[in-house]
């Protein structure tokens, strides 16, 4: 059952943009791009929020760091974000619970005016990324630059590749010792320390993984948008949407953020096409729907949609086998 769903999902994700490309509509490819980016961000947040159990409301800082350093290239930008995150987070790990959550918000609040006034990263004018024509598809893919009629298609597949890479790494982390350490700290920090897990170190590691994913997504976004405005890349939405997607799908579950992003992100687009230019267009109806979904999930199924007994509902009922004779 699980394998079948996985195969269908993989084929759908690969084939999805092709009929759209033949038809010549790039709009829904961009929707797909946003779903993938948010799913990827959700996967990243799941490490600190879902596994390590620390409420991080400021990971968008590292999205901003990635986008602002995108001109260094993907690996270097990710490295910068990880170093910045580790340096900032280590002192914060003295704080626990609510205090830690507020401290992450505090760092975001401090990052905003710095982003807006620091001219080196574009400050008020923003950074612009020059478009260079690439000779071949491979060169475009390596430099993450696509233009012309295949721009949306190219970015869709780049996002898909990065998303798949993130998912594979997260699957590794989930089953590694690291993943078990994270969950041990979440479930009982004192007990985890009692068996010799350095909780502060592993919290920093968890948040650095989150930061790496956010920075990678930030780089991709910067190349896609071709311009980086600090107030845009530091927007609260870069954390709230992925966090909500994680919760809707199932917090602490590998596939939770993916399912959540596939459900939540297209809502805004569907709403804006169905409402069109009617009287309720642009009045935040999509966000009302988000709010309702989150409230209902929190009230009735806080462990997320993936925790519902899908297997029981979809598995064909087998005839009861008679008990073996003694």
């Amino acid at each position, binding site marked *: 059952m699980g394998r079948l769903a996985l195969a269908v999902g993989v084929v759908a994700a690969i084939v999805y943009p092709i009929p759209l490309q033949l038809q010549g509509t790039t709009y829904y490819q961009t929707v797909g791009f946003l779903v993938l980016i948010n799913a990827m961000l959700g996967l990243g947040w799941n490490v600190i*929020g879902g596994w390590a159990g620390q*409420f991080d409301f400021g990971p968008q800082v590292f999205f901003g760091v990635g986008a602002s350093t995108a001109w260094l290239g993907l690996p270097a930008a990710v490295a910068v974000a990880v170093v910045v995150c580790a340096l900032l987070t280590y*002192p*914060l790990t*003295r*704080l*626990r*619970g*609510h*205090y830690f959550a*507020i*401290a992450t*918000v*505090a*760092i975001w*609040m*401090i990052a*905003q*005016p*710095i982003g*807006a*006034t620091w001219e080196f990263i574009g400050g008020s004018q923003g950074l612009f990324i020059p478009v260079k024509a690439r000779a071949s598809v491979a060169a475009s893919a390596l430099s993450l630059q696509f233009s012309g009629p295949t721009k949306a298609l190219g970015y869709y597949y780049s996002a898909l590749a990065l998303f798949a890479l993130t998912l594979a790494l997260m699957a590794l982390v989930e089953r590694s010792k690291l993943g078990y350490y994270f969950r041990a700290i979440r479930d009982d920090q004192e007990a985890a320390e009692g068996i010799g897990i350095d909780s502060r170190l592993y919290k920093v590691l968890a948040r650095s993984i989150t930061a790496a994913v956010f920075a990678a997504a930030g780089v991709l976004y910067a190349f896609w948008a071709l311009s980086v405005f600090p107030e845009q890349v530091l927007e609260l939405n870069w954390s*709230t949407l992925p966090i*909500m997607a994680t*919760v809707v799908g199932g*917090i602490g579950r590998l596939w939770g953020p993916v399912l959540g992003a596939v459900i939540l992100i297209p809502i805004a687009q569907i709403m804006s096409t169905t409402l069109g230019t009617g009287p*309720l267009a642009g*009045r*935040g*109806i999509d*966000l*009302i729907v*988000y*709010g*309702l*979904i*989150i*409230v*209902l*999930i*929190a*009230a009735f199924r*806080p462990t997320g949609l993936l925790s519902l007994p899908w297997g029981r509902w979809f598995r064909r009922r087998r005839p009861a086998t008679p008990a073996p004779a003694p």
Partner: protein
Amino acid sequence: MTELVQAIVNGLQMGFLYALVAVGLTIIWGLMEMINFAHGEFLMLGMFGAWGLSAGLGLDPLLAIVPLGLAMYGFGVLVYRCLMRRVQGGDPFTQIFATIGLLFLLQNAVVAGFTSDYRFVGDSLLARLSGAKLRLLGITFGVPLLAAAGLALLLFLALYLLIERTEFGLALQATSEDRDAARLVGIRPQRMFAIAWGLGAALVAIAGAILVNFFAVYPQVGLQFTVLAYAIVALGGFGSILGTLLAALVVGVIQSVTVVYLPPAFKDAFVFASYLLIGLFRPHGLFGRF
């Protein structure tokens, strides 16, 4: 020198207003240990209510305090009974997400009804006084801000007496400390939580009715005040009402002194930098009882 003193005085006056926004949160978050991310939306509802009563019925925002406080008390109780009671027993993160959902719901319901336009209360008692200034030793006190600060102080005092000096306040504290023990001595925890939510919502609505004299009203107005309110409650130490007041004053002064020397964009950044700095040395806030 006068500039600095003036900045401190202005900061203190703003601090009282911040204290008013934060104190509703102290009760729900600090005292009862429930998280409410929709606190800013309660504030926004209070501001919208005050604006509506002023624009529709010509009621002065200061008089609107009474109906708004009562209505929002009912709303707070309703939110607890319908939603928060359900998520209370579970993981703390369910409370976070239930109230974040509520935040989106309330904020955008108001956007859908009234658009995101900025609105101002035109004619109010405090607005009419806006020209009036008191000068003392070269320091200027704006009369409207001074009046609002006085009002905030009065409300604060009443709340402090209610929580610290009455039997009801003791019952609230007992509930937050040990629910089962409270039940044994005849306190009904569910009722206490409902009252705490009602009180928190009513207080922040009253804060909204006062703030509406100084700030524009729009559906997203809550966020800027709530992030400060969260820092204030944590800085003051959870559940300490006096701590909240002092922390709010500190925050107001940090903001206004920062603006004297640095671009205004940095005023909140400095508040949060101080929070981080203090948090590192006193992880439980300035006045936390630990």
